[in-house]
């Protein structure tokens, strides 16, 4: 396996929302992501799939610190030695929080993206770039494409005026846009072309990690296929690592080497993509795969859907305790209401969070916990 480029440990983020608009000001805390741990290997495309609102965007924003995590660590680009040092200093789970361990505290605050100063973080902002579902809303509509692409180079003080020009024309070509487009404004482009501009802007600083948050979700299928092909080609050309977020499992299958399935703010399963589809071990993954319609041209459409434990209204329930999937789960047991299942490695590189699975001999990716 390649070197670890990014490692997230026990990331959590809670939002505080006003419960009612006018009559009371009761504040309610909504956990958007809870205890998320995973790692990205250099050069891979890692897919993250889950329904809208399950916390995918929140997770991607906490990685970049566009949102401040309440808890947890994010490490990026550490050498193997640095990782070893950190891991050997890390106190064993259950024996304090590491508050007592001076060396661990020091290493952690030096490397952890979620606690370092804005100044130390600055170089990482160049190495990690993000593209969104609606690129247009992230463009300043008064800027021309040329200025939109030049901006990140200016912020990070890259090159002379001439170098920057060259870089941006090169980038336009790389994403399949005409050089002449540099003169135009973003609103003159179609959705697919705007996403190409978004990709060009993200890649112009030559990042190591590209986070793509639903980059094709609002595009038509034919354009969607063009953008997926583009991302696939560019990531090979530029040796990028990609975190590809989508609510559509078919898209994930086309792009990802490994994939994680998220539900209710927690990771349910992580596996190499082909293993995930061939052998889904979590009931939610299984449900997602079986719910997806398949169209085979010449054979008609196939809509044999899995009849699952069906109660549409139960979607609304957000659980603070137990397994977050249990309202929809065909296999739920009493223990699922009390105990949060930990994410366990049940087969090599295949992690699952479900009480139904036999106790594995593998390692613990993150611990389950009471309540």
């Amino acid at each position: 396996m390649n070197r670890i480029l990014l490692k997230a440990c026990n990331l959590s983020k809670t939002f505080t929302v006003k419960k009612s608009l006018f009559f009371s000001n009761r504040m309610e805390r909504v956990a958007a992501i809870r205890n998320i741990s995973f790692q990205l290997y250099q050069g891979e495309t890692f897919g993250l799939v889950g329904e809208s609102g399950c916390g995918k965007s929140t997770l991607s924003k906490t990685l970049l610190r566009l949102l401040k995590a309440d808890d947890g660590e994010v490490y990026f680009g550490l050498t193997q030695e640095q990782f070893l040092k950190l891991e050997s200093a890390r106190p064993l789970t259950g024996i304090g929080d590491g508050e007592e361990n001076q060396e661990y505290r020091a290493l952690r605050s030096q490397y952890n993206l979620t606690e370092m100063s804005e100044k130390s973080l600055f170089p990482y902002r160049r190495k990690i770039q993000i593209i969104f579902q609606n690129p247009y809303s992230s463009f300043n509509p008064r800027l021309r494409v040329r200025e939109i692409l030049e901006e990140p180079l200016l912020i990070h003080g890259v090159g002379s005026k001439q170098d920057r020009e060259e870089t941006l024309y090169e980038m336009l070509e790389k994403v399949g846009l005409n050089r002449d487009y540099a003169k135009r404004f973003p609103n003159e482009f179609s959705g697919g072309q705007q996403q190409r501009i978004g990709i060009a802007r993200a890649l112009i600083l030559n990042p190591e990690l590209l986070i793509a948050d639903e980059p094709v979700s609002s595009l038509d299928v034919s354009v969607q296929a063009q953008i997926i092909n583009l991302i696939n080609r560019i990531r090979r050309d530029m040796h990028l690592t990609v975190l590809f977020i989508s609510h559509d499992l078919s898209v994930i299958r086309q792009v990802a080497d490994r994939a994680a399935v998220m539900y209710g703010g927690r990771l349910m399963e992580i596996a190499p993509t082909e293993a995930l589809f061939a052998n889904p071990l979590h009931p939610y993954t299984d449900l997602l795969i079986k719910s997806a319609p398949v169209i085979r041209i010449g054979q008609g459409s196939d809509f044999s859907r899995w009849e699952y434990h069906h109660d549409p209204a139960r979607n609304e329930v957000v659980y603070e305790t137990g397994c977050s999937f249990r309202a929809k789960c065909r296999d739920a047991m009493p223990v699922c209401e009390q105990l949060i299942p930990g994410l366990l490695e049940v087969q090599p590189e295949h992690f699952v969070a479900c009480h139904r699975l036999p106790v594995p001999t593998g390692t613990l990716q993150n611990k389950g916990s009471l309540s």
Partner: protein
Amino acid sequence: MISLTRLTNGTLKRTAPEMNPLLEIRNLQTSFHTPYGTGRAVNGVSFSMNKGEIIGLAGESGSGKTMTALSILRLLPENKVHISAEALRFNGLDLLSMTDEEMRMIRGHKISMIFQDPVAFLNPAFTIGQQLTDTILTHMKISKQEAAALAVETLSKVGFTAPEHKFHYYPHQLSGGMAQRTMIAQAIVTRPQLLIADEIATSLDATLQNQIIDLMLLIRQELSSAMILITHNLALISQMADRIAMMYAGEIVEIADKENLFRNPFHPYTIGLLESIPRIDKKSEFLKTIPGNIPDIFHYPAGCNFSDRCPRVMEICCHKKPGYYELSPGHKALCWLGERAATT
């Protein structure tokens, strides 16, 4: 046995005359007048539908799906937009000659539309219960209490648990799926005969999509409403529609019942679109695409509208518009290849 009939441009000959179509559209044209010229958004759309039938209107964004729906409902600004049709009849009534007042009574009462972005259409300052009750009161002569009771009943029908409690929710307290359900509740509360839904489940994940699909099918069963479902997601529509009309550049390029469309797609655009859908059952190194972009409404190519992107383009396609060919009863395509199929 395939019967091929050459039909005159723009009009569809009906295979079996429908007795009383709920909606009959013949040669609908919608154009925008701007200082730069006239843009033709809908270019001779014709179809009719029966009571309780579900038609899927599919195609890329910009192909004229939403414009077709808004034209039927006359929801476009009349000073900027010109709508014409040989026939635009709902229940035999001519929608084009109705007064604005008559049209308002049809909209929301007999025909309801569910829009793409539910949150944008809910008023953030009022609870969903208040908004539902208001809709009911505009269309029904019943007391406030009765309207509120009906609102609660409708919320429960679209799948809210504890509807009396959710009645007091504000739009910002709803999840995406709940907001979509609220919009559906708004649209069905008056028991319309025709529901038009624009991209209602596209942004939801597969399990939530299936719940919305089940809900729509349940509504048809209970209210016998006919539906026009607009989407660019063919996989989604395949689970709901009886018939599918593929739109491209303001025209219906192929129409067939669902099974036929997926089994024997004919129009090169339909085939291209079906092939570019990422499949969940297999990984492809490279996804098929349709090169190029849909023409803008001011500049159509001469001849066939798809000729500049079509992998099977022929000489005639570039200067002469194709007409509709009937490939089998009810299966029609707007493509010169239809003629070739006729002679072989």
